[in-house]
């Protein structure tokens, strides 16, 4: 199975792959962010591989880590193939403090909430997301708590008290 996926990735997305990782028997590919949707779509719709299950989307922040200088944020797509009973990971590194990446909502409905959570807690913007609003933190909390530079001590968390933009009234 590993070989099959490697071959598939090399044949179709040889420009998009940054590197392959095989830590503790978990196959994962680091890819360029422009290729993300094509790769996910290709893996989902390929007759042989059929990675039709998006288990999870999660994110990392490498702020302040000198060894991980190529891109501050990392978004991880956890895919599972029901047909082959195989799990693999697609990882994307993002540069800058206000990163953006394409949404996967058109491929999976579950991406909607998972991406909202990543946006809320890590501040990664998903372009094209139909409803990218906060999901777990209060509406007026300023900042994204899971970032490594979010203040934990000495500073109190900042709240806007909705002074500038009152929340939309649900009708």
């Amino acid at each position, binding site marked *: 199975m590993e070989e099959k996926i490697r071959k598939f990735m090399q044949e179709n997305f040889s420009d998009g792959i940054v590197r392959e990782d095989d830590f503790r028997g978990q196959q994962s590919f680091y890819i360029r962010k422009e290729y993300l949707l094509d790769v996910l779509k290709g893996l989902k719709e390929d007759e042989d591989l059929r990675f039709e*299950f998006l288990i999870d989307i999660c994110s990392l922040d490498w702020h302040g880590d000198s060894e991980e200088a190529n891109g501050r944020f990392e978004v991880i797509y956890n895919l599972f193939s029901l047909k082959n*009973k195989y799990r693999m990971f697609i990882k994307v590194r993002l540069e800058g403090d206000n990163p953006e990446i394409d949404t996967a909502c058109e491929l999976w409905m579950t991406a909607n909430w998972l991406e909202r959570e990543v946006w809320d807690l890590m501040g990664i913007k998903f372009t094209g997301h139909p409803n990218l609003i906060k999901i777990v933190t209060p509406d007026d909390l300023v900042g994204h708590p899971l970032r490594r530079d979010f203040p934990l001590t000495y500073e109190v968390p900042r709240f806007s008290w909705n002074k500038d933009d009152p929340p939309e009234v649900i009708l």
Partner: protein
Amino acid sequence: MSVEAKRRTMSLNLGPQHPATHGVLQVVLELDGETVVKATPQIGYLHTGIEKTAESKLYYKVIPMTDRMDYLAPMSNNLGFCLAVEKLLGIEVPEKVKYARVCLTELTRVMSHLVWVGTHALDIGAMSMLLYAFRERELIIDLYEACAGQRMMTTYFRIGGLAYDLPKDFDQKVKEILKKVPEGIKDYERLLNDNKIFRQRTIGVAKISAEDAVSCGLTGPSLRGSGVNYDVRKALPYGGYEKFGFEVPLGKNGDVYDRYLVRMEEMKQSLKIAKQALEGMPEGPHIAHVPGVVLPPKEDVLTKMESLIFHFKLITHGFDAPKGAVYQGIESPKGELGYYISSDGSNKPHRMRVRPPSFVNLSALPRMVEGGMVADVIAAIGSIDIVLGEVDR
């Protein structure tokens, strides 16, 4: 004509203070008469930042926090985290630990499903079910108390094994559970399976097709009720599950009734696994011998210098994990519970991501209830079995 008069729909807040939402869940419903046009779940009332807190804790200090996520199935949560860290460190646990963990987590599944069947039946009108289900659940809680000294927040599993050896009357207690719970399940089935009211409230309600269920990321009994055969224990066995024989019950229609049938059958299968685990339990140590990662036995700490050093170092500094990222998914009673742990080589997790089954399953709620009746929303919330502690973390 004013804007208000043109509106044909009415919005209704279901929750957050509502006993049938199983916690602080708010669902904003757009109603046209009694039909639900749009449902918007609002979550976050119980957000405690467990993922963030874990970043400033030594690895073994994260375990008590995992109990508090899915408080109806604490041992499953412990297991997921311990397995993930063991995978990261490359530790192999003793055979006895594997059997004991399987036995306890399967009983945890029974316990969680018992609470579910009680509250779910209560939500849709069968009052007495709750009392019967809690009667059987008490037996499993007693076993927890004998093992860990705690009835609910057990924190019994450790990285590399168990906190203490199994109690002397473990066999006897599990045998009592294996005898009494199946009798209870028979009673529930007699009460509910052919109950006219229960069937009318559940059959054909909150349907979800197999394709939609996969696209929505449903896992666990909610997915298998739609007939998709995905059980982490079978698909990607962990912690010794490949040694046990059991079947994965599947539904057909993907409605509330099928999800109920799947969970009832799952309880029987879980008891079957627990029985096999009890019978096959080998003798041996209750925790792996890995100096520097696992605390040495107390006698050694008092008599041997090396053990004392390891003890001191572990308590003050913990252990440094190798750099890398691992994911470990387990089949918790609610669905696939996954821990993604990224380590930067220090003694604390750089990032711990929990893949919460309840959160993802809840996101499918609008898909299930839109177009149905407002009373069916309660049945649907009950049938996907959410725990708000896990949804919000």
